[in-house]
């Protein structure tokens, strides 16, 4: 079991996702972004920044997070957090969000599982990754994309090459949607993703 430190930015949807019984047991500790400097990160295997954590609240801790990665730590950086402002080697391309794709006959958001043999996809399937697309990444050489968009650009990837640690980076924002009681696919994503982080990552 990994020890997960989850950053808690304090919105209603963060409270719901991080504190309600469905997922709370998976987080070993919660920390306010402003208090990251008071925590010994080496006690944790994963530091997780949930989606829609404002980058302005993470950027002051960039050096601290890079030091954590340099000693082998893992950072999980969810969507809508402007990761390029607080993590290394991030190349993010914002895309216009089609909020209404699912109203079009036979439409697809175009997301696909890029690496079906990866253990994450024993827990989630193609129907659990698609709600909105806010952006894509151009991962560094050697990084492994797990979810791609229709043009083959990464939506979720694992970078074990930039640092001695690991960065799992995505533009998906399931904490926001699950915590808003708004998107069953986002809930299904977290039902598989968070236990996978806890048990296998």
């Amino acid at each position, binding site marked *: 079991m990994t020890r997960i430190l989850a950053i*808690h*930015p*304090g*919105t*209603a*949807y963060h*409270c*719901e996702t991080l504190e309600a019984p469905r997922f709370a047991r998976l987080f070993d500790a919660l920390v*306010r972004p402003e208090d990251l400097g008071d925590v010994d990160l080496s006690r944790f295997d994963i530091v997780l920044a949930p989606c*829609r954590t*404002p*980058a*302005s*609240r993470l950027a002051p801790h960039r050096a601290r997070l890079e030091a954590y990665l340099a000693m082998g730590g893992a950072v999980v950086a969810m969507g809508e957090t*402007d990761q390029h402002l607080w993590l290394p080697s991030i190349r993010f391309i914002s895309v216009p969000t089609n909020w*209404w794709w699912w*109203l079009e006959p036979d439409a697809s958001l175009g997301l696909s599982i890029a690496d079906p043999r990866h253990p994450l996809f024993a827990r989630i399937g193609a129907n659990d990754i698609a709600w909105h697309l806010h952006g894509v990444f151009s991962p560094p050489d050697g990084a492994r994309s797990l979810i791609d968009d229709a043009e083959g650009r990464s939506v979720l990837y694992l970078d074990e090459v930039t640092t001695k640690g690991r960065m799992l980076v995505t533009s998906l924002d399931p904490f926001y949607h699950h915590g*808003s*009681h*708004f998107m069953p696919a986002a809930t299904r994503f977290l039902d598989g993703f968070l236990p996978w982080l806890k048990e296998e990552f």
Partner: protein
Amino acid sequence: MTAAAGRENLLVLSGDGPPPKAFDAPLAAGALAIVPQSELDDARLAAARGLVTTMHLDQVDFARRSAALEAFFDRGGRLAFMGHLARPFLPELAPFVPLGAGRRADFALVALGEHAVFEGLDRARLETRRGVAGFYGRGHAPPPPGGRALTGVGPQAAPIDWVWERPAGGALLMHAGNDLWTVCDEPSVNVALAERIVTWCAGATA
């Protein structure tokens, strides 16, 4: 100028993005000021005439400011609160209660009371976007005793919108859903809702 007229109306922004376009006019007119939540100190909060908060409010921070908020209300301050109440910031408040299954009938809206923010506005116009229901809100926060329900949601007409005149001073307008200035397909309706919220916070409407 009265003391109230000299006090600020503040839109509290909790993310890194720009202010919502629906507030352009009151911002340009000086009827509303933007303040990032991280830069809002308790003294400015307590001295404000009105506050508008969004569904992205850092409620952990907000609840820690209960003393400043009580001072704000004691001075007659008005707060328009958007979103799910996760951290009640006054002793009279109770947390958000989500709706059940999310069937279409669960998202039906019904007017339960008159208020300047909703005056002349058919709730049916707010019930769907592109024919899809559920954007307005998906539950309610129970109003305190004396709270007056304005909009009901679902088969039980749970009070998703209400206004509460706090006995010790001030008032709270609760909308337990997505930011009110985003709920309609018609942009002019969203702008009207934003501008009416500002007018109410300023004390110019009852």
